[in-house]
């Protein structure tokens, strides 16, 4: 496959791995955190972890959009799905995430109209095809998905679609990175910064983290060679005492990012405090509708009741998301919690850390 196979060249990958293995390190352990679910999965799918020298530890952070969605937001989505005449539309795995006592998936088998869509505009299409129904899109995800949702909202206004609204549980990544560092729970020597999110926010968005917190940041692509190169750049920075933003993923990411996409987000949404699973409320880390667009806000359209959230007592998704616990250290891992019967979102999502450990991790080939 053109444009991808070049970044999967086994010979080049082996050389990069060999070079990393031959290096001597000034520290016993260098901890690099990836904060993108797609990176987590790419690392597992290529079997990269076991090929790296033991000094380099890759840890997963809060990079899975489904996983960081707070339980209360899942409960609200479930509550919305029970309103008469409502069609819930959402992306992928969210439907399977257990809330306090149910999931959208289960509600669907009970009769709720929950539809998985591949693009936000599909949700808008469903609204136009069902003018007598209320169509709510459950908007989750980072800066990557927010522009598409903003575009759908803009389109809805243009077309005069009255029965379409968005429940916005969007998250912004840089505030979460700062919150992680401020909490000082986890030692991070460098960030493998996300590829897709950075296409929108630009590599420049990490400058504050690099400069103020003295943590090296490398924006990295998703193919095995990209990740190996990203890791190499981070190790170079750590070993030479630098803390800068570098961009390994130049073929997609610029320093400024996608200005038009950000403008679109900014037109419709404004930053707001937001609750993250396992991390609590992080200031200005979410997106809420600006007043002029309130009529598309599902939270305005439907008076939400106070929701009493009940977390599964044994679930350690919060700790896993903060990088302070490995999935395998959770008492539920493989013991009652599996991708099929998930107790927490990190096991549900195809990008979740627990799911990745469950699905892909194996002993090295004999």
């Amino acid at each position: 496959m053109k444009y991808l196979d070049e970044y999967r060249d086994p010979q080049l990958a082996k050389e990069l791995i060999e070079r990393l293995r031959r290096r001597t390190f000034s520290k016993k352990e260098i901890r690099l955190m990836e904060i993108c679910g797609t990176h987590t999965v790419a690392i597992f799918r290529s079997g990269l972890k076991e090929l790296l020298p033991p000094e380099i530890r890759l840890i997963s952070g809060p990079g899975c959009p489904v996983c960081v969605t707070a339980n209360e937001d899942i409960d609200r989505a479930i509550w919305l799905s029970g309103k008469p005449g409502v069609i819930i539309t959402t992306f992928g795995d969210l439907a399977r995430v257990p809330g306090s006592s149910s999931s959208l998936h289960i509600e669907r088998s009970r009769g709720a109209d929950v539809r998985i869509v591949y693009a936000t505009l599909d949700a808008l299409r469903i609204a136009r095809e069902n003018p007598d129904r209320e169509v709510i899109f459950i908007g989750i995800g980072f800066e990557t998905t927010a522009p598409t949702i903003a575009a759908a909202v803009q389109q809805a206004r243009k077309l005069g679609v009255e029965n379409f609204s968005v429940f916005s549980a969007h998250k912004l990544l840089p505030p979460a990175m700062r919150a992680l560092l401020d909490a000082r729970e986890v030692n991070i020597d460098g960030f493998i910064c996300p590829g897709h999110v950075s296409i929108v926010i630009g590599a420049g968005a990490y400058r504050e983290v690099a400069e103020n917190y003295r943590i090296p940041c490398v924006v990295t692509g998703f193919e095995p060679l990209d990740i190996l190169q990203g890791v190499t750049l981070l190790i170079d920075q750590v070993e030479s005492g630098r803390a800068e933003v570098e961009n390994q993923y130049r073929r997609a990411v610029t320093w400024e990012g996608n200005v038009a996409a950000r403008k679109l987000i900014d037109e419709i949404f404004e930053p707001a405090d937001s609750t993250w699973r396992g991390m609590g409320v992080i200031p200005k880390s979410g997106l809420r509708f600006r007043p002029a667009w309130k009529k598309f806000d599902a939270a305005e359209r439907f008076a939400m009741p106070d929701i009493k959230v009940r977390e599964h007592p044994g679930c350690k998704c919060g700790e896993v998301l903060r990088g302070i616990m490995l999935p395998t250290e959770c008492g539920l891992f493989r013991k009652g919690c599996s991708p099929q019967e998930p107790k927490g979102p990190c096991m549900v999502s195809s990008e979740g850390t627990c799911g990745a450990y469950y699905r892909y991790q194996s002993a090295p080939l004999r």
Partner: protein
Amino acid sequence: MDPGLVQLDQGSGGRAMHELIDALFLSAFENPLLLERNDSAVFEIGGGRLAMTTDSYVIDPLFFPGGDIGSLAVHGTVNDLAMRGAKPLYITAGFILEEGLLVDDLKRVVASMARAVREAGVQVIAGDTKVVPKGKADKLFINTSGIGIVPAGLDIAGANARPGDLVLINGTIGDHGMAVLCKREGLEFENEIQSDSAALNGLVERMLEAFAGIHVLRDPTRGGVATTLNEIAEQSGVGIRLFEEALPVRGDVAGACEVLGLDPLYVANEGKVLAIVPASGADAVLSAMKSHPLGKSSCLMGEVVSDDPGRVLLRTRIGGCRIVDMLRGEQLPRIC
């Protein structure tokens, strides 16, 4: 959080479906033939060996690039018979029609079925038709059952894989699932992805002529190659190793999977056969496959090992290793 209600993923071909089948159907209908969990049951009647199977088709959309529900209903059942080495002879067809279905659509489906049975060399010898009120079914469901005769000397079953065997496939993986998904969701790529839906009995016949000692044949339908190989690994108590660089995936299918965040290993096929063959016969089988129109791009994609029984592992391009699990839940596109 078990709500006591059937969930959609219990029909997706993966782990959830297996658990439902094990917990409910196998224990209720318990008998040795059913417990073998093969694509079709092989039994003796009057000195001859017969194979029998049944399958229901509920695909949406009814028509997709490379096929439709009618041809699929023939191919699927013919293939389930062929996967035991049987020569398929007769099939039955049950139709559940939703009130309001376009008669022209039904005509197209039936014509396509008729073409498919002719091409596969089988006959439809019994049928049933029901119409249900609008909304009680989705346009058209078809059930087909099939019966075939198993030539003497063949012993092909999911439990027969042995360490040292090689894993062959007759072409690219994931074509059918991506064709249907792209059609259903209106996703357009440069070229329309075609389903691989085909009757495999002719190909299987040629493979068995070349080497009758084939251990396992399986068509990796729902749940894809990954799920089917996991079933075989469990049934045979062996490990299976795949080589990532050897996995045959068409460029357009790989591209669509990349865009949607899907893994072709879990995407359905309807015209593919996985053959697990002793190393001594692998060359003969592979060249027989390549000589058939449905096997031109056949290749070796893995091996059976004694390590890690019940598991499928993949050696990645860059030299790493990972588990290839059964499909769990539904395979869903990524969102980021």
